[in-house]
């Protein structure tokens, strides 16, 4: 729809350029000089002033003489005027008309954001209701935790901290995580989440306090991806880029198959690599796409063929549903969405497959353009769209 409007606008703009070609013959005449008209008008004005007694007879005669002399000069000059070419330059106009949409289209392709649709405030009622619900629930949880004897359960404070982080209230998140961090049941994750909130609260700067939390997280679990990630950020900010880069790479190499933390690792490593002048890496170097994570693959579904129809149906649906609900909780899992879409496709549910692929498409923007998952999703989407056209 938007592109139809743009084409219409582009055609309209181009037609403005070629508009003179539509002109009729009577327009193809250079407008004569109207200077003498102005001067004749001035002559009449002098006469009027004289009639009104504003100027004397002598003044009027002198003024009229001067104006008449100027009329003569103008007439002489007009006679020497050059002739105009009334027909030439058509090709130039056509070229210019082609230039206009090309130029604007080229600019827009670089700078436009056609993928973001308009969203008026009135249309976002559901979002606000949802947000209000979260705020209300958070307030309730906070009130309960504070009133509980013994300071409230650590799980509760962790949940509260994560919710505050998502809402962008990092300072409150820090306060929640700190309560757990000061307890004996604090885990590596407690400290890495605290570090993350502290860094976000300072607009990305790793403060000494945040670094202490990072170190604690790594002490408790040296393999905690969040701990490693923020350690690398701290190192890079301190100027130890090479160490940060090496740390990220060794952690990626140690990984067994794909995990959701790998994407930010690759991005961070590439950012540092750019400063160091090293080659960028891609996710596929470390995580082959074949589904190594648990989830319904085409093989699983085929294996279910031995079961009775009823059992098989239930088995498949339960697997798919499990994956779907997991993804609702963790919507940033790109590979998860691709797997879910595949499963729907195998089940013949093209509408849901399409919507899962679309969710994946949104996440594709967060990874490098060289990643092979771009191609996988694009191909699947094309096939699905072709199928729906054929139907």
């Amino acid at each position, binding site marked *: 729809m938007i592109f139809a409007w743009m084409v219409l*606008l582009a055609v309209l703009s181009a037609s403005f350029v070629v508009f003179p070609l539509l002109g009729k013959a009577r327009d193809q005449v250079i407008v004569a000089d109207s200077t003498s008209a102005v001067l004749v008008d001035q002559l009449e004005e002098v006469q009027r002033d004289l009639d009104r007694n504003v100027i004397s007879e002598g003044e009027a005669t002198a003024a009229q003489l001067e104006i008449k002399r100027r009329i003569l000069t103008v007439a002489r000059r007009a006679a020497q005027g050059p002739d105009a070419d*009334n027909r030439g330059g058509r090709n130039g106009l056509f070229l210019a008309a082609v230039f206009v949409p090309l130029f604007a289209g080229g600019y827009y392709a670089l700078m436009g954001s056609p993928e*973001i649709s308009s969203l008026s405030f009135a249309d976002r009622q559901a979002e606000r209701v949802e947000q209000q619900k979260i705020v209300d629930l958070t307030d309730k949880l906070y009130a309960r935790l504070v009133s509980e004897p013994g300071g409230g359960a650590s799980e509760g404070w962790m949940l509260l901290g994560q919710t505050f982080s998502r809402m962008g209230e990092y300072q409150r998140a820090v306060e929640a995580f700190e309560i757990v961090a000061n307890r004996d049941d604090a885990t590596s994750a407690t400290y890495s989440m605290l570090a993350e909130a502290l860094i976000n609260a300072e607009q990305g700067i790793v403060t000494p306090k945040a670094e202490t939390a990072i170190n604690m997280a790594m002490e408790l679990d040296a393999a905690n991806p969040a701990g490693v990630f923020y350690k690398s950020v701290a190192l890079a900010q301190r100027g130890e880029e090479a160490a940060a880069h090496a740390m990220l790479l060794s952690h990626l190499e140690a990984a067994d198959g794909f995990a959701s933390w790998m994407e930010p690792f690759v991005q961070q490593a590439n950012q540092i690599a750019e400063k160091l002048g090293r080659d960028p890496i891609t996710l596929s170097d470390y995580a082959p796409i074949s589904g190594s994570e648990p989830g319904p693959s085409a093989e699983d579904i085929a294996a279910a063929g031995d079961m009775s129809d009823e059992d098989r149906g239930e088995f498949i649906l339960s697997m798919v549903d499990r994956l779907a609900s997991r993804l609702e909780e963790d919507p940033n899992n790109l590979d998860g969405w691709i797997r879910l879409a595949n499963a729907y496709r195998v089940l013949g549910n093209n509408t849901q497959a399409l919507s899962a692929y679309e969710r994946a498409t949104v996440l594709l923007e967060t990874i490098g353009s060289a990643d092979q998952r771009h191609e996988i999703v694009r191909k699947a989407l094309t096939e699905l769209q072709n199928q729906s056209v054929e139907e």
Partner: protein
Amino acid sequence: MTPEIGHFALALAFALALIQSVLPLMGANRGMLLWMQSARATSIGQLVLVGIAFGALMKSFIVSDFTVINVASNSHSLKPMLYKIAGTWGSHEGSLLLWVLILTLFGAGVSLFGANIPETLKARTLAVQAWISTGFLSFMLLTSNPFDRVFPPPADGNDLNPLLQDVGLALHPPFLYLGYVGFSIVFSFAVAALLEGRIDAAWARWVRPWTLAAWVFLTAGIVLGSWWAYYELGWGGWWFWDPVENVSFMPWLLGTALLHSAIVTEKRDAFKSWTILLAILTFSLSLLGTFVVRSGLLTSVHAFAVDPERGLYILFLLALSIGGSLALYAWRAPMMEAGGLFKPISREAGLLVNNLILGTATGTVLFGTLYPLFLEAVTGDKISVGAPFFNATFVPMMLPLVLLMGMGPFLSWKRADLAGVLQRVRFIALASIVVTLVIWYIQEGGPLLAYISILLAVWLLFATLREWAMRIRLFDVSFTDAMRRARNLPRASHGMTMAHAGLALAMFGFIGSSAWKTEEVVFVAPGTTIEIAGFDVMFEGVERVRGPNYFADRGTLKVTRKGQAVTTLFPERRYYPIAESSTTESAIRSTLAGDLYASIAEPASEDAELSGAWTLRILYEPLVNFIWIGSALLMLGGGLSLTDRRLRVGAPKRARTTSATPTPAE
């Protein structure tokens, strides 16, 4: 979709501007009619496309589409609809879009109403106009895109500066820009004339309506801004010699000079290169105004437009347009033919002195505005040049101008009879002195300069009315006959009378509210009574009230005079929680004699707040409303002149003498 359509339309407008910058100019040089004529359609095309972009942005503001960063930063869902709409041009990006919209409006205006302008001059003028729009469209698309997006959008917007949520200020930028940018077309005409190497009576007449229109709008813009400052800032002043005010005042001063010198060029074929220079400088000062406000070069009341990086781009545009046009002027202006001669006592000489004074005054304001910047750049010292400098330099310079203004219209072209003129005005001079003495007797005090100024204002008013009476022979013929003559008088003549009389009236306001103003700033508790200019003002207390997007502390003041109740005033201090800022809403009792003006500020301390004590500012400003009445007359006079048939070159009556198509020029 809407913002993206707007963005794309802007890109198309830029492409059209590029074409219009080149093709018509080449056409004019090679005599190719098709290329020349392309400017007509492309200038209208630019208006349509920029109009679509402006509409798209306005729609985004109206529906509060916070996926547009500009809307998210400058609006809020709770804001009253009028200010949502005004928010379209309230931000840096939006105001630039408005700037370009007006630029294209004037370009399209020449294209639609300039059927009788010779093809080559029109093509060159529109090409120059397209250079300006190319500069500003590229500035917008590269550094200040109003259609930048964000996803996911923030839950709600950041509100518009509450100080700017005022009707006066909502309309102030559009009018100011209509004035500023209106001078662009005059500039384009001037540069086109230089390229063409020719300027004559017809050129001057084509330029005059555009100059006049821009001047009327600029007057309206300045007056609205001044009116806003008076009502909204709570200081009771209408002009602060703030740099941002000065940069709008300079093009006005020089535009006024241009308006008058164009008359000489038209009537007497003189002042040609001077008129061209004025046209270039007037628009250059408009550009300077845009630069100063938009670059954040100066930090003042208008500190909301601070962004030095963008400033560099405008500085580059400024250097290119002013430097380029002045270089062209230096090269081509000496080739202009000399015009008609005149004696030292003549209307031309009067207008020349008028131009010199206005030019010098502009230079003075420019110096006072830019000097602190230069000093800071060179020595690092920060100083401010304020009212004392301008009152000591600008005001005395204006007084001879007013004296001359009264006399000028009596002078005839070429060679005037000084003795005859003096004889005509001697009774007026006498009457002015008598009136001033009466005022002196009533006022019993005030600075001498105020009385000299009053004398000149009265002189200007009387002389203007006398000249008008003379033209219609009010006292020589019967009243009905005189009225018939008044009807037959050209509208521009009435316009001049109105504008000159308007200035005289505005002067009463300037002088009265400056020289005889009384002011009390006091610390009051409920029940306190203050005496000012014969009024007794009793402070009753402050209560908390709620508005649509603010809450306010509203004071109640009972005003009496000699025991008789006069009025009750409710000044407010408003607090806008979302924008986290507060504004002053003054309360004013307005009469022709003067304004009683009250505003409340914060309580002086927490203890004072508990006891209900507040800081109260009360002023009495005599004659201040004459400023607004006089300004309205200035604008009406300009507007009336604009409707004069004589400004429509090639109007039907003269069609028989030319092949020009009869179309109005404005």
